[in-house]
């Protein structure tokens, strides 16, 4: 390359002052996500500090006594353990059903379905992801809750109904990401297995699923993220009681459902304790994000 051409090349790529400003503006747009995360953390933390200071970590996070006092917030107790329990129990039970169902549907799309049917299932799952959670909640409230009530003789409200609703909410995430992972596996894996005389099922569970392990795990973790954060649909079917329970058929609450049930009338330390619940949700979500990072770093090695 001649010196002249190199100079021209430099000029072609270079930005003048106005263009540099535009570049900075675009950088600002990109950095907005960083700013947003920091602001969200800051504001949620700031609003929950009064409760943490006044009640202490033990009374706030490790007690299951949630007896708010609306007219005199200082006089109430605000222990959120029952709702942390509700969130974790409903999420884990939803994954117990949702993970096999979602990964199974992904294997069906990737391995067993004829192309046209695979396409139908893929579109169906996309569409399911787009159905608003109030609609899933209303569906659960009017069909699932009475069904459970008739089947078990309970009220129908509770963690069982909530978990089933969460399966519907998390299924699209798990299936879509699992199918993507399976599709990205090198085709030689499958070819080698089939060439050695393995059946499709043997190929799936001895070769493909072990090879896709990390990706499938990430899919399930992101599904958990959806389940932990789901609010309206859960609030409509879980019964919104304040008790700590492990029974799938008793009314209880999750962190999200408690926040929207109480926020309308909460002031003072009561309100601050609800923000502390949001802080717990925030931390749970960050734990999931960081574990996904760690898993995908492992995968690269």
């Amino acid at each position, binding site marked *: 390359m001649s010196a002249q051409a190199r100079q021209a090349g430099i000029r*072609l*790529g*270079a*930005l003048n002052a106005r*263009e540099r400003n535009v*570049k900075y503006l*675009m*950088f600002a*747009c*990109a950095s*907005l*996500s*960083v700013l*947003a*995360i920091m*602001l*969200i953390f800051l*504001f*949620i933390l700031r609003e929950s500090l009064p409760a943490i200071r006044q009640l202490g970590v033990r009374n706030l996070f490790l007690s299951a006594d949630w007896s708010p006092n609306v007219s005199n917030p200082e006089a109430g107790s605000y222990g959120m353990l029952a709702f942390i329990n509700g969130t974790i129990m409903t999420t884990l039970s939803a994954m117990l059903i949702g993970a096999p*169902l979602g990964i*199974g*549907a992904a*294997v*069906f*799309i990737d391995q067993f*379905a004829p192309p046209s*049917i695979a396409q139908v*299932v893929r579109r*169906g799952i996309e569409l*399911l992801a*787009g*159905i*608003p959670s*109030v*609609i899933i909640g*209303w*569906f659960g409230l009017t*069909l699932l809750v009475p069904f459970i009530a008739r089947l078990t003789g309970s009220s129908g409200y509770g963690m069982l109904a909530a978990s089933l609703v969460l399966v*519907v909410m998390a299924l699209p995430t798990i299936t879509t990401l699992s199918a993507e992972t399976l599709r990205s596996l090198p085709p030689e894996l499958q070819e080698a297995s089939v060439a*050695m*005389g*393995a*059946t*499709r*099922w*043997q190929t799936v569970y001895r070769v493909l699923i072990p090879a896709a392990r990390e990706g499938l795990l990430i899919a399930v973790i992101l599904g958990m*993220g959806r389940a932990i*954060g789901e*609010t*309206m649909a859960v*609030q*409509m079917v879980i019964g919104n009681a304040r008790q700590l329970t492990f029974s799938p058929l008793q009314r209880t609450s999750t962190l*999200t459902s408690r*926040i*929207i049930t109480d926020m309308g009338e909460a002031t003072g330390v009561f309100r601050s304790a609800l*923000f502390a619940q*949001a802080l717990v949700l*925030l931390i749970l*979500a960050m734990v999931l994000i960081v574990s*996904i990072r760690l898993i995908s770093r492992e995968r690269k090695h």
Partner: protein
Amino acid sequence: MSAGKDGRRSDRIAAGVFWVLGMATVALLLFIIVEILARGLLTALNPKFFLGKPEAMKAGGGILPMIVSTLYLVVLTIAISLPISIGAAIYMSEFARRGRVSGSIRFCLDSLSTLPSIVFGLFGMTLFVIYFRWGMCLLAGACTLAILNLPILLRGTEEAIRLVPNTYREASMSLGASKWTTIRKVVLPTAMPGIMTATILPIGRIMGESAAIIYTTGLFVRNIPLNPLDTAAPLAGYIWYAQSEALVNDYRRIVDGGAALLLIMVLAVYFLARYLGKRYQQK
């Protein structure tokens, strides 16, 4: 592991199980759609309902201000977040090098897309509604949803920009155009149909979102909101409100009708996105 008689039999059983799992998801979707429409379609398509004013205390209320609220919120949210997304996407695809900065931006985008929407709702309430003193209004809801939808909108926009072949950029630069001129005159116009398609999916999400808007936008209004600083009541939030707290005794009719209407809107947006996406791919 050769496929003996047992192997073939277990393969047939497995195939059967996977067919059931795959079809179960589609069946579930169809069941939900058919059930919601069967219950609410008649109410939803009654002009007295979708053109009527809601009632706070007595039966027979309609839902027009809620539909307007939802559409208004969609327009406002996209108006705020689309320029930001395009700017950020251009930066990420044309300027950013792989490194610390773009790495931390991606990490924050991933985190934003995993945070529960109720957390966005509480954040929007403290920042926009209380700290900025806007009160509950469309603008506060739109700003909240703009942040909530930034990751998904940015991802779609960036993909559309990356799909523009590099030869276009090289051709433009070799004609003497600067990098910025190339972006403005070549990259953006070529990517525009893709960007438009990428905008439609978030629209469906905005329509269906409720946890992030009930404390930023509002739950109940009787009049149609006109000003972005007016309190409004998007349909999804109102459906929740009507079934859980409203005092009218025909709430079931309202929720059935509202759910059917919301479902129709979301389905329409989805199929529009599919149609445009297909047309865009064919070109």
